């Protein structure tokens, strides 16, 4: 049986990596900071998948974003999904050629649907993640596109049904209310997703500690939990969270994370000995 997944989302904005709270961004550092000071590999070696989103509020520099995907991918041995403002086949191709395995699309699901169909036909459903940003409003949810800046007038269930019919392979649903709060996931959302059985669901927004990750993964409908908060799981936060999840009998993949140190350059020693 396919395992459940723990996902980390990196938010990229104009050469920097960001903290987000209710979609307001604060810069944490650049790629050097991420690799050296922040020691990102500690996280990369304990998660099942990585998502990198270009949430640049100004004009996006695609080449520079792709260079960042490559730099992160050099020492990251898990599937990588990337996206943010993908609007052309060339943009999609540049991302995949930089080492990403899947594409994340959001606004185009609403305003460029033929383009989404085209991506599905070129790369297959398994390559396309449909991302949906929502805000709670009374008993329903409002959908926002363009980095949470534009509200669209569609009921959530209708939008979800529609994007599945476009052929996307996974849904990444992010609560803007919970984003960056560390108060736990927005579980009211799951009621709206209850009848989706054939497309994996990733929930995002609000995870502050490992209890929240367990709360998410314990729902049958949830295939993966994501967190984009750079500081809620700092240091050994992720390795510890993973251990707690495995101890709680969450069906996660297992590997020896200490092995990374032994494996690095191990063939060099083999050749020289």
């Amino acid at each position: 049986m396919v395992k459940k997944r723990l996902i980390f989302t990196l938010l990229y904005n104009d050469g920097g990596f960001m903290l987000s709270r209710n979609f307001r961004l604060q810069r944490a550092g650049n790629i050097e900071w991420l690799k050296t000071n922040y020691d990102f590999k500690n996280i990369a070696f304990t998660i099942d998948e990585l998502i990198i989103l270009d949430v640049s509020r100004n004009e996006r520099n695609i080449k520079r974003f792709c260079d960042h995907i490559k730099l992160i991918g050099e020492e990251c041995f898990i599937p990588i999904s990337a996206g943010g403002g993908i609007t052309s086949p060339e943009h999609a191709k540049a991302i995949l050629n930089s080492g990403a395995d899947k594409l994340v699309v959001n606004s185009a699901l609403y305003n460029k649907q033929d383009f989404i169909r085209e991506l599905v036909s070129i790369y297959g459903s398994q390559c396309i993640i449909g991302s949906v940003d929502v805000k709670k409003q009374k008993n329903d949810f409002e959908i926002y596109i363009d980095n949470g800046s534009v509200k669209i007038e569609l009921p959530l269930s209708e939008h979800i049904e529609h994007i599945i019919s476009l052929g996307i392979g996974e849904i990444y649903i992010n609560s803007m209310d919970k984003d960056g709060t560390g108060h736990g996931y927005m579980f009211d959302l799951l009621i709206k997703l209850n009848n989706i059985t054939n497309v994996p669901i990733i929930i995002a927004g609000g995870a502050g500690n490992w209890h929240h990750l367990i709360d998410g993964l314990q729902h049958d409908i949830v295939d993966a939990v994501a967190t984009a908060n750079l500081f809620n799981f700092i240091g050994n936060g992720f390795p510890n969270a993973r251990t707690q999840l495995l101890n709680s009998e969450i069906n996660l993949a297992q590997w020896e994370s200490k092995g990374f140190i032994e494996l690095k350059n191990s063939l060099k020693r083999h050749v020289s000995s």
Partner: protein
Amino acid sequence: MIVIVDYGMGNLFSIQSAIRYLGAESIITSDRNIISTADRIILPGVGSFYRAMEHLHTTDLVKVLRESVIYGKIPILGICLGMQLMGLSSTEDGFREGLGLVDCLIERFDVQKSEGLKIPHVGFDTVTMTHKSRLFDGLDAQVDFYFTHSYRMKYTEQPYGVGICFHGEPFIAAFEKEHICGTQFHPEKSQTNGLLLLKNFIKNF
């Protein structure tokens, strides 16, 4: 030299990064002379079987791959679609013959048997190895790897070692027939489990 075959299909960058992490160098090429004199060949691939075989024919790589592996005895590792291409044939996008390096058929998952299961089969899943294997040296008998595919190598009993995964039905997730190896999963995307397997392929063959 470790050669990663470039025939225009798939994620070559990640495989090269994983090999570099292990401390070895590799070359990405479609040059027939370099392939035929390689120490090891890695055949990657993502996408449609039919199109991939077409690319291998138009770049004139079918013959050099078969000769290097069958007569030259160069160890080869096929990954994902690259593994499927080593089989006899596939029905993806219409019937097409493969490289014929192993006696296996590729077909879509049997949807009836996989009722209630999602296709494509995506994510980490557990592989059980049937025989002692150089490729799986140092790994547990049951080990998790990352998969993403809709077609699979049909399970039939084989005289050589195979890794079996179960998705509604058993299918061949890995094989090791002397120096001819394949993995349906992505070792370059499977954390230390995959890195160790890649290291085994480079060190033990």
